[in-house]
């Protein structure tokens, strides 16, 4: 999927963050099923590209997975979901809390054993997502900044696989979307804050980024309908199922991943 100029007319062009794109694709698909005749055209390009596209009118809705900078703030922003990151370890790992600096050192490859963290003289198995994935992008942005994740890290191409590996290796540490944490792994508290929905909504847990929809004006017409649709119970529930944190509380279904 490449970046084509937005088509006018009946189709609604949504463009921006590649992290949101796969989800937005899904939402658009469901939307178009419900509203035959309407076309929602979702494109990637990255958050900055999305912000720019709304500014120039190339897209009706922009998608950003980062907070807007000051000079971008004249756009209307709608939070549609949160993407939280949990730092996970094996359930038997005695460690419960970690600081963001420690996380950074571990993923930089500076701390290589558990000794300073939980007293065990075991080598740390660092597990990360692959280059290009939104989860890794978020982690890079929120934790690592400009520093590189260590080359020695084990790389897996899905959150499920990262969780699976951490759940099997007592010495492993990794990060996954918060929504995917289950009893097979332990999510660490960060600087003393447990990664709960509450903490996130209260902005106490720091490894979280918003999924924003942006418009130039107050949304109207098809754009408004689509945004409302995304904020509806149906889609917010879907959001939860897909590992994101909905902006509106809906009852959490059993066995969600």
């Amino acid at each position, binding site marked *: 999927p490449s970046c084509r100029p937005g088509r006018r007319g009946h189709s609604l062009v949504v463009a921006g963050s590649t992290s949101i794109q796969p989800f937005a694709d899904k939402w658009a698909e469901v939307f178009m099923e419900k509203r035959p005749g309407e076309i929602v055209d979702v494109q990637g390009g990255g958050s900055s590209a999305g912000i720019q596209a709304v500014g120039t009118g190339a897209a009706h809705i922009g998608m950003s997975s980062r907070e807007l900078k000051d000079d971008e703030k004249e756009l209307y922003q709608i939070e549609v979901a949160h993407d939280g990151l949990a730092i996970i370890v094996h359930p038997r790992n005695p460690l419960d809390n970690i600081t963001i600096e420690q996380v950074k050192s571990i993923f930089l490859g500076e701390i290589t054993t558990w000794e300073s963290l939980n007293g065990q003289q075991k080598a740390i198995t660092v597990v990360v997502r692959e280059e290009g994935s939104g989860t890794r992008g978020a982690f890079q942005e929120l934790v690592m900044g400009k520093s590189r994740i260590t080359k020695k890290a084990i790389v*897996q191409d*899905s959150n*499920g696989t990262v969780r699976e590996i951490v759940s099997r290796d007592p010495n492993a540490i990794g990060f996954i979307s918060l929504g995917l944490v289950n009893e097979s792994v332990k999510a660490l508290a960060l600087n003393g804050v447990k990664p709960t929905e509450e903490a996130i909504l209260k902005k106490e847990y720091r490894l979280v980024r918003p999924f924003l929809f942006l418009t130039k004006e107050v949304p109207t017409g098809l754009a408004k309908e689509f945004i409302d649709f995304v904020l509806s119970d149906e889609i917010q529930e879907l959001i939860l199922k897909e590992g994101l944190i909905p902006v509106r509380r809906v009852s959490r279904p059993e*066995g969600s991943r």
Partner: protein
Amino acid sequence: MGPQLRLQPRTEQKVVQFLMYFMTSLAVLVLVFILVVILKNGLPQLSLEFLTRNPADMGREGGILSTIVATIFLTFIALLVATPLGVGTAIYLTEYTVESRITKVIRFGAECLAGIPSIIFGLFGFILFVNKLKFGWSILSGGLTLAFMVLPTIIRTSEEAIKAVPQAYRLVSFSLGSTRWQTVTRVVLPSAIPGIVTGVILSIGRSIGETAAVIFTAGSALRMPTSLFSSSRTMSVHFYILAKEGVSMPKAYGTAAVLVISILVINIATYYLMEKYIRRKS
């Protein structure tokens, strides 16, 4: 080994024989182990429901019907395209030409194609079918990619089957006044059919088991395919995702068992055919 250390030939023979026996057993045991693990854990998961219901909740619940359907569609398209091409090529190489630069090039092409890793086929199918021809991630893209992948298998087995037809049959047929095409259709192909079928069946097995090439061309959407252009998840891809992401081990084993059993049935059928028609002849 110096001459002093030399073993008696008969002792040496005994030692070597034992070593070989040991290593062969090891090889066979490892392979059998895999089979046993899959079947032992997978068979209890199998039920009519498992085979006739669609996966639910990312595969955690329900069965694998849609992945079976997708696998069948994909394989069918692959064979529909590859069989005529492969058999035609084999007929050309064996019956319609003498060894020449062209045959060498064609054969080299087939051999190389056979050696190309499936991931490369995946990349190629992704660029050509998914992107350039705009078939998207779909049954069609996946099927065509697989067709290219199994083409060399079909060429090679058909060629072997055709070559195994005794030359005397051809001489007799020609001496009774048939043209080449008559010889091919009335004498050679009927005798070679079991071998050709063998190649086709082997290709079915390969198509069913393929993951890397399929995941990039047919996608991994977990839903029942509705048209040639639906993105769909085959059994292998489904198993890969279930197993790797630890979605559900029981379902993973169940899927693996279906996968392995179908491939075993297919290979046993092939073996039986070869035993019955080809090896018996020679």
